[in-house]
């Protein structure tokens, strides 16, 4: 019985190895896209911005997403300065509405606003709400495998396709082989493909509802030395979120 078990294990390892070897860049990024864009998601997160001068700014927010990241709603809880401010992103952040509770005003933003920093952080709205941008806006090419923090990783280069309006010329991604979770993403300048703008490191990966989830994300801005940490405090995937939740009516609540 033990021998059979070992045999099955070896077959499994070998078949994974063969599969892993044969996977193309496009195959891998499709698998990654499935992992990072669950059908529905709720998260409560703490975002800490460390400015280049060393000052800290902390935000607490809740977010809901649906249709593999196609619809997103973010609502701030803290600090009081931005409490109840909310952002609705539809069509993978191509359509953005922001609600300002102090003026009770909803403002529709054009897609160029995706480039703006989210609350002054090193994450742009595009970084947060682009859903399947990895497969829609880039073509993937597999590079040599790498090791990151003890994990065997695929390394991919994603090059922006000509018709995309995404703000980066290319991305280089390290992906844990057996989980298809990105652990490092390097973002390169739109105008200079050799100039790295920022680097995202994901860590503290845990299984939630069967989905590997990075509970810690750190975005390092390579230009000014600032960095933004994102810590997930609560995550849920097995949710049924109605479409009516992603409307201006709910945005204003």
């Amino acid at each position: 019985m033990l021998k059979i078990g070992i045999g099955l294990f070896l077959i499994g390892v070998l078949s994974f190895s063969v599969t892993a070897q044969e996977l193309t860049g496009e195959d891998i990024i499709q698998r990654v896209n499935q992992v990072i864009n669950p059908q529905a998601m709720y998260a409560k997160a703490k975002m800490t911005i460390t400015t280049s001068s060393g000052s800290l700014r902390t935000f607490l927010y809740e977010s809901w997403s649906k249709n593999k990241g196609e619809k997103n709603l973010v609502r701030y809880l803290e600090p009081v300065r931005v409490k109840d401010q909310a952002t609705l992103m539809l069509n993978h952040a191509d359509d953005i509405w922001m609600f300002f509770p102090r003026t009770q005003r909803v403002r529709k933003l054009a897609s160029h606003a995706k480039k703006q920093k989210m609350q002054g952080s090193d994450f742009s709205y595009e970084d947060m709400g682009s859903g399947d941008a990895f497969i829609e806006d880039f073509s993937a090419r597999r590079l040599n495998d790498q090791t990151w923090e003890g994990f065997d990783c695929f390394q991919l280069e994603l090059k922006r396709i000509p018709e995309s309006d995404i703000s980066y010329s290319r991305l280089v991604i390290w992906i844990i082989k057996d989980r298809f979770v990105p652990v490092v993403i390097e973002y390169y300048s739109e105008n200079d493909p050799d100039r790295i703008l920022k680097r995202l490191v994901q860590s503290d990966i845990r299984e939630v509802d069967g989905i590997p989830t990075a509970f810690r994300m750190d975005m390092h801005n390579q230009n000014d030395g600032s960095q933004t940490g994102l810590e997930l405090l609560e995550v849920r995937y097995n949710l049924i979120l109605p479409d009516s939740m992603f409307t201006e009516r709910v945005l204003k609540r």
Partner: protein
Amino acid sequence: MKSCWMAVVLLGLAVSATAAPEELQIFGYFEPQYLGTHISAGYYQLFTNKLRVDVKSVLSDKITFAANINTITYHGKKEWNILDFLAPDIRDTIPVTLRPLYTLPFENQTLLDNAYVRLSLMGFDLTVGKQQISLGTGYVWNPTDVFNVKDVLDPTYEQPGHNAVRLDIPVDGRHTATLLYAPEASWGESGKLLQLKGGAGRFDYSLTLIETRWTFHDYSRFDAGSLNFAALPERRRLWGGSAVGELLGMGVWAELAFNTMERSKDFYELVLGSDYTFDFQTYFMVEYYRNTLGKSDYRTYGLNDWMRFFTSEQKSVTRDQFYSLVQHPVTDLLVLGFQCLLSLSDGSCSFVPLARYSLSDDTELFAYLNLNIGSEGKTYGCSLGRAGLLRLRVYF
């Protein structure tokens, strides 16, 4: 009336007290502000302390109560005579004995700014009480908004609440019908609004109908009976619409309102705007505004034009204006910007450099200078002086 509002607040607080403790939220901000203005009459400075206290209680997923009280104290020069800001040829038409009537007093106040209950049921949202009413897509000017007039130097500052009953009925995911009634002494004097908001492609639009009582004053005639300038109330009907979306990668918006007046001349207002964020995070916005209540020849600007502008009875003295804003986050904490207001009708302009600095998570500093460089008698003429504002806001 005051006691009535106090009762609403007490009722709200009592209702809030019955809610689970974690659902009762008390927050707000303290805002000391300094405003200095240099005009020909001298240097005026006004210090303001504003305390805003908000109460919000989510009693269930269907009922929300929210209110805020503002207490404002003024110090320094607390009486500003509007005539001091006008060109001598207009000022000299007013007899010296009547000039004190044109004084704008800044009196300490405690005000129930907003207090409303919102019922969110399956088919509609009903909001009853004193509430903010924000209409239109324009950034500096909103032709379809008869309830508020923005400060062109600080257009994102919060607007006061208005007593109203508002019904929002979602038609589908993207379309909403809104009915609003702002009661006054009689049905005829009350504000009535019907609006349809919707979306088509990358654009959102709204169609708005409003009927209300509008009161211009004749600032050259004083009514001894009311101890005020002669009031000229009349019915105002507004047919308007707005749209916001994206064109060639740029944000674009438009807002148009035709006003038919019972007695005075009909007029229309139009706003066209566009904005863009560059890759290097610099934000750029322009807005064009036409108001046919305003005049195209500055030599015809009269006392009533200026007084109606200063008292928000009309949104501009001049007919055509252009606004631009450039803003850039210099660091993660500091944003610098530059606004320019230009009267296309008389060629005067105002430069407004501004800065916003985050001192901590809940403390921010805002400052601007206001440099009017037009010749005397024009919209942004030198008679309006040169001003500076420094505002600290601490949230709690």
